[in-house]
């Protein structure tokens, strides 16, 4: 399996972040994995990355329910950044919410690639990475 250069995990559940990171490493799917515990920290990091010209994340796993800045607000901010800078990041919502409202909202946003209900198992991850390459 080919590797992805940069994957970001934006989630306030540190255990989940740890387990997902471990799985990704085990699959040897990625070289750099960064995690952020809410939307605000992530958006600040994104701004900095753009400013410094460092490589942007190619794949983001985004949680919805986070304090300070949640997933939806992150997407709003991301949209703003995208209007200035061309980015082709693939964003997946990964949430334990099974609310239809959340799923529909995710579907309505162009920036969101798909909606995954937690936990993300190995097969799902392999699938996501597979699709990531097919689209490239």
């Amino acid at each position, binding site marked *: 399996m080919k590797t992805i250069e940069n994957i970001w995990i934006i989630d*306030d*559940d*540190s*255990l*989940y972040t*740890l*387990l*997902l990171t*471990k*799985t990704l490493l085990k699959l040897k799917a990625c070289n750099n994995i960064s995690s952020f*515990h809410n939307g605000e920290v992530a958006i600040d990091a994104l701004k900095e990355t753009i400013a410094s010209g460092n490589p942007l994340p190619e794949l983001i796993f985004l949680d919805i*329910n*986070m*304090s*300070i800045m*949640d997933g939806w607000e992150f997407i709003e901010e991301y949209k703003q950044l995208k209007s200035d800078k061309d980015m082709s990041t693939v964003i997946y919502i990964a*949430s*334990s*919410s*099974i*609310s*239809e409202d959340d799923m529909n909202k995710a579907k309505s946003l162009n920036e969101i690639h798909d909606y995954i*209900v*937690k*936990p*993300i*198992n*190995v097969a799902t991850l392999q699938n996501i990475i597979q699709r990531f390459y097919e689209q490239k």
Partner: protein
Amino acid sequence: MDISVLNNENNRLTDLLSYHILDTPAEDEYNNIVSLASKLCSAPIAVISFVDETRQWFKAQKGINFSQTNRDENLGEQSVTENETHIVTDTLKYSQPSESVWASGEYNIRSYASVPIVSENGYVIGRLFVSDTTVREFTTIQIEGLKQLSTLISALLAFRKKRNAKLNANQNMLATSYINNLSDVVFIIDPAKNIIGFNRIAAQYILSDTGKEVKEGDSVYSYIDSHLTESFNNHFAQVMQGAKVNDYIQVFTPKNDRWWSVQYAPIQDNKKIIAVSLTISDITESKKTERQYEEISNVSKVGGWEMDLVNDILKWSDITKQSHEVDLDFKPTLEIALNFYKPGRSRDRIKKAIDEAITTGKPFDEEVELITQKGKHLWVRTKGQAEFHKDKITRLFGTFQDVTEKRNIYEELLISQQYYKSLFEQNPDAVFALDLNEKFISVNEGVAKLAESTVEEMINKGFAQFCPVEDAAMVMHNFNEAQLGKATSYDCGFVTANGHKKQINITNLPVIINGVVVAIYGIAKDISESIEAKNQLLKSAANLRTVFDNTEIGYILLTNDFKIVSFNKPAQDYTRRKLQKPLVESENLVGMYETDRMAALDAIKVRVLVGEKVEYERNIKLHENEDYWYNIIFHPVSGENNEVLGVIMEIENITSRKKSEIELEKSFNLLNEQNKRLLNFSYIISHNLRSHTSNIKSILTFLEEAENDEEKAEMLQHLKNVSGSLDETIHNLNDVVSINNSVNLIYKPLFLIEFISKATDVLKEQIIQKKAIIQNKLLIDTSVNFNPAFLESIMLNFLSNAIKYSHPDRQPIITLDSYLHNGQFVLTISDNGIGIDMEKNGDKLFGFYKTFNGNSDARGLGLFICKNQVEYMGGKIEVESTLGVGTTFKIFFK
């Protein structure tokens, strides 16, 4: 099934049908309810079904693509009409008919919950149910929600029924006004052949013809002559198949020889024939003319004959042969022909006439009797004349005509004198002749009966002595007119020999001989009864007026120019209330309005005058607390060519209905709000529990695939942590659920000071650490009616938040104060802390968005709980805050 169950089922069906809900198109209200039910229960399928005799019909459905099932295609084993909640968590535990749509692979139902829909009369007429394709449980909250939605459906149904009843009443009124204005007799007959409607003319007609008063619900057979029953049945059956039938018969009228055309037409409702209209028009005049033509053409059937004297051949025309009733190939001879004439005078005369014609050429024209081949006796007119050839008679020819009928009439005339005599004497009406001094010359039994006297007694008596004084002048005037040769007819009083008063109608005819009036012929009819009937009619018209005046709906009858023709009391009340002036007959309605409303009324007028029915609701607000709602309808009243002849303005006071509608909407919104909250709550619960379980699942995968003991130990440590937070989450959720479950909480007066000191006691350490100042501006005896446990939790939460989110650059000051808002006690808790970005987070402040994870923000849950507790007690919480300056929470107590 025993009788009482059967009866109950029949009543239930009748009750269901009364809502007219079956087979109606989809409606938003019901669709919204199933969506809500589906969301509430997180179930893919939700249905509102109504159960009739044979099926379950779906008014609204989500997640399935069919709209009804057989009645017995039931999810489970319980009866659908049972007033119970049915919950099945796994359908495989029940035997199900395998052909059921529910069991088919497409839906594969594994669980469901179903609540009854109960009508106003207490019958279970349908069900609201949700089902799922997985084996699952339904929570108490979900079931309670379904029950509330079912109550909402019942309320919607009740409202629908009321609305339908009103619509029907309006339609009936319009139809009645239309058919009452027809000059034809109209009956409406239901499929059971009972009269369910008739117009005024029909009632009069039946009354005058049979003396019976026709009533709704009468069998139509009560008014049909027995010999017409069969043809009526035939026609009726055809019309019930949808045909339109015209028939010309003598109906309902055994007395006089009148012809009626009867038109049968089906009346349809939703393509179903629900009744038959019978329109009866008098066509006697045209029918009589038709009959006379027939008679004339019969009489003029003239045959011919000729006799060739050279070759001795007799020829008859076809008509002549028909008259003799012989075959058309019959070959007559003179001898045979003569033998048809009746022996004796007739045969002798015709023989003589023919002999003379042959010898002298004298033409003849004889009316004699003849006996046909089949032995029928006829009177015939035989005419003949001779044809000469070189002074020799070579041929006789002439006509032959059956004149039996004419002859019979002639013979009748001979005896008609007898008839006239008996007609006079036997006439049931009173017939009399007066001399020019108004004395009776002759009277019949009818007159004697009318006068309660005898024929002999009356002769030579003057008419005047039977005439009441008040009518004498009028009667005298009419006699004088008759003496001048004019026929007159008039009503007057009549006093019998025994002093009884009657009302009679007199027709006076002058008897004119050689241009001179010699006597007066009179016909008198006792009309006491019909006068009585007329008075009754006037009385019932007055009654109708009373009904018109006393109905709760206001009516203003307008000309097509909006001139006021008539109005009733409710209409007057409405106008006074709205325009502060009274309605006046023959004034223009438009002119009564304020100038700025005139244009609107003119616009309505334009629409009504093209035949449109205009309907709107109007709100009249008199004072702050006194407002009225009216439903206004302008009905065009159309003539035969659809031209608008007039307008009926209908004014219905719908204040109470409107208010209950508004109430209904309010409670609907409240329910919606509650359901939204419940739904939200169920997502939160699921989300919070799922985040832990998904972690557990991941850890277990790692554990299974762990490559060394170190990794295993790490994972076990994680598992321990997760189980700890899961426990905490469940504990927290318990707190929230317990608010919603606290049905019967104790309220009691509580001193706020006590609870403040209790809270500061608990928070002592934090207060000391942050050097916080608690300023209490409340009076020592300030008390609120509240639940102690809730108040304790509220105080603790707000004070601890105020301390926790204090500003790092200044000493925290927390102020407790109170004020009254519209009589409501409001507690304020202000701090000078870091404040909240209201624009960004205001809407989420009390929401339950935060997770309970270790790094989560505790404020989320605390405020959510406080808000629920306050709202549960009937109050509310408001917040004002400026970022970097401070926050004030306001708690409104009920």
